[in-house]
């Protein structure tokens, strides 16, 4: 029965029919799609959880840089012939430490100087990626895969590695969640209460780097940021209550990734395009709904109230 279904699918190619049950069953016929869905689920949960804190802490730019850094990591790993997964994580964690370690500029304006540093780290990392690619020579098709992602080549071993890192990162996040939330919402009061603000922010950047390295293995280095920022931005426009928006972030991330994988399976276009488009659609709907609700006179909590640091 299943063998016949596989045969007919292979013969007909992947085509969408009006029978939804058959379509969904067809999605899971091939093991590469099952692996892609497993990896996508792990990645969506990790990115949602870390992305929620990233948006709360207004570190979108740092998050984007950590996401991009996985490209030189992977290119460098290919160049010296070690595992790409190692390259992803090593580069992301190293960049997180650099951003956290650079001394603050004299005379205040911490935010300004930090953003210049983050921008420089990002551009230099990408330049290193270009150098590695040039030194390695001739892997142009692989380059597009590194930058824009591919879900076809996810191996079971890679899924296990993703799961292990995600579990570790989420466990650490669970331990530091309460003090991190405190430090993010009101840094001065948290510092006065003896919360190790600087240490927490460094640790958070490392966790964010891990999440970015995970996601980039599916969506490619350039589109990781979509999964980090879009679900969180959507959820924070729907509700201002921290717990509700946290779980909503993860739910939105999961739906976006599942829909994108299904859409990419049934079309010729890259998965990264679908991830960003579905994520952006969710964000636009949430923003429009919020505007409509406030226009119709229902007084609601203003944007980010209670979440603004």
């Amino acid at each position: 029965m299943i063998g016949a279904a596989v045969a007919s699918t292979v013969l007909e190619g992947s085509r969408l029919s009006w029978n939804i049950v058959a379509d969904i069953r067809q999605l899971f016929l091939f093991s590469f799609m099952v692996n892609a869905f497993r990896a996508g689920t792990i990645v969506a949960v990790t990115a949602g959880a870390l992305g929620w804190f990233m948006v709360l802490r207004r570190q979108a730019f740092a998050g984007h840089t950590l996401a991009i850094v996985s490209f030189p990591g992977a290119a460098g790993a290919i160049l010296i012939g070690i595992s790409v997964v190692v390259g992803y994580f090593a580069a992301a964690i190293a960049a997180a430490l650099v951003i956290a370690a650079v001394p603050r500029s004299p005379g205040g304006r911490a935010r300004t100087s930090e953003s210049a540093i983050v921008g420089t780290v990002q551009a230099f990392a990408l330049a290193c990626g270009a150098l590695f690619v040039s030194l390695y020579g001739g892997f142009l098709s692989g380059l597009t895969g590194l930058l824009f992602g591919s879900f076809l080549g996810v191996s079971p071993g890679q899924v296990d590695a993703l799961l292990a890192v995600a579990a570790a990162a989420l466990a650490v996040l669970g331990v530091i969640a309460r003090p991190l939330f405190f430090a993010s919402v009101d840094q001065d009061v948290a510092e006065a209460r003896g919360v190790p603000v600087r240490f927490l922010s460094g640790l958070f950047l490392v966790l964010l780097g891990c999440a970015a390295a995970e996601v980039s293995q599916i969506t490619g280095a350039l589109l990781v940021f979509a999964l980090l920022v879009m679900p969180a931005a959507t959820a924070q426009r729907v509700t201002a209550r921290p717990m509700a928006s946290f779980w909503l972030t993860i739910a939105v991330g999961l739906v976006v990734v599942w829909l994108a994988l299904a859409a990419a399976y049934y079309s010729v276009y890259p998965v990264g395009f679908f991830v960003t488009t579905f994520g952006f659609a969710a964000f636009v709907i949430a923003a429009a709904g919020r505007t409509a609700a406030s226009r119709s006179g229902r007084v609601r909590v203003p944007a980010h109230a209670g979440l603004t640091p």
Partner: protein
Amino acid sequence: MSGLAGLFGEPFLRYAFIAGAAIAAASGLSGYFVVLRSQVFTGDALSHVAFTGALAALAAGADLLVGLYGACVLVALAMAALGPRGRADDTVIGSVFAWILGLGALFLSIYTTSAAGTNATSGVNVLFGTIFGLSAAQAVIDSAVATCVCVVLVFIARPLLFASIDESVARARRVPVRLLGTVFLGLVGVTAAAATQAVGALLLLGLLAAPAGAAQRLTARPFRGIWLSVTFAILSVWAGLLIAYAAPKIPPSFGILAVATGIYLTAIALTANGRRALGV
């Protein structure tokens, strides 16, 4: 000396040095204000828009420059219009440009699978730049555009500084803060489009951020900082070009970014004890 003469005997190197200097001056100048106004993330977004614009033009079979400049300027003006006081929220910027980049991936896939673009090099060139591949016409266009950006920026430098440092006082003194912010972002968009040709969409952020960041670490005086930033940018481009010429395996974009990052690191080291190096 004969080596230097030989260096400038090559036309493609002459174009690279001249256009590179003009683009670097525009980047250093606008970058100073970008860093001062905490809009580096906006510059980051514009650099990614440049990629999508260029690829959209290629996929549609139009001229690359049209897509490049059109997309950068449109998105820059849109961001100025969206945000309160001409500055958009981080999450909004992030969501919008992540989606635009996704569109870029779509256009890349359309372009590479179409008959016109059987080789994927154009997409990669947009991402990482081809300063040694500039034609005479391109070099002239880029230099002219970058020079215009510099002239306009110098012209509005004083009111823009005022509006960037103390917005409410500037507004009370009837400085057109909102208009200045919009014009400025438009200029950053034009700079991004011009710089995409030279260092690539992904790396132009470094030319905006690193020289300006170094200059602001070294001095708090605005005009000294502006000239320092421009000097650092031009120095980075020229030194990077020389490195890439001497070692052909190294892409010019990497040489440029390596020098710019080195300058920034030096500035950080000089000011690590909490003082600015060049007076207050």
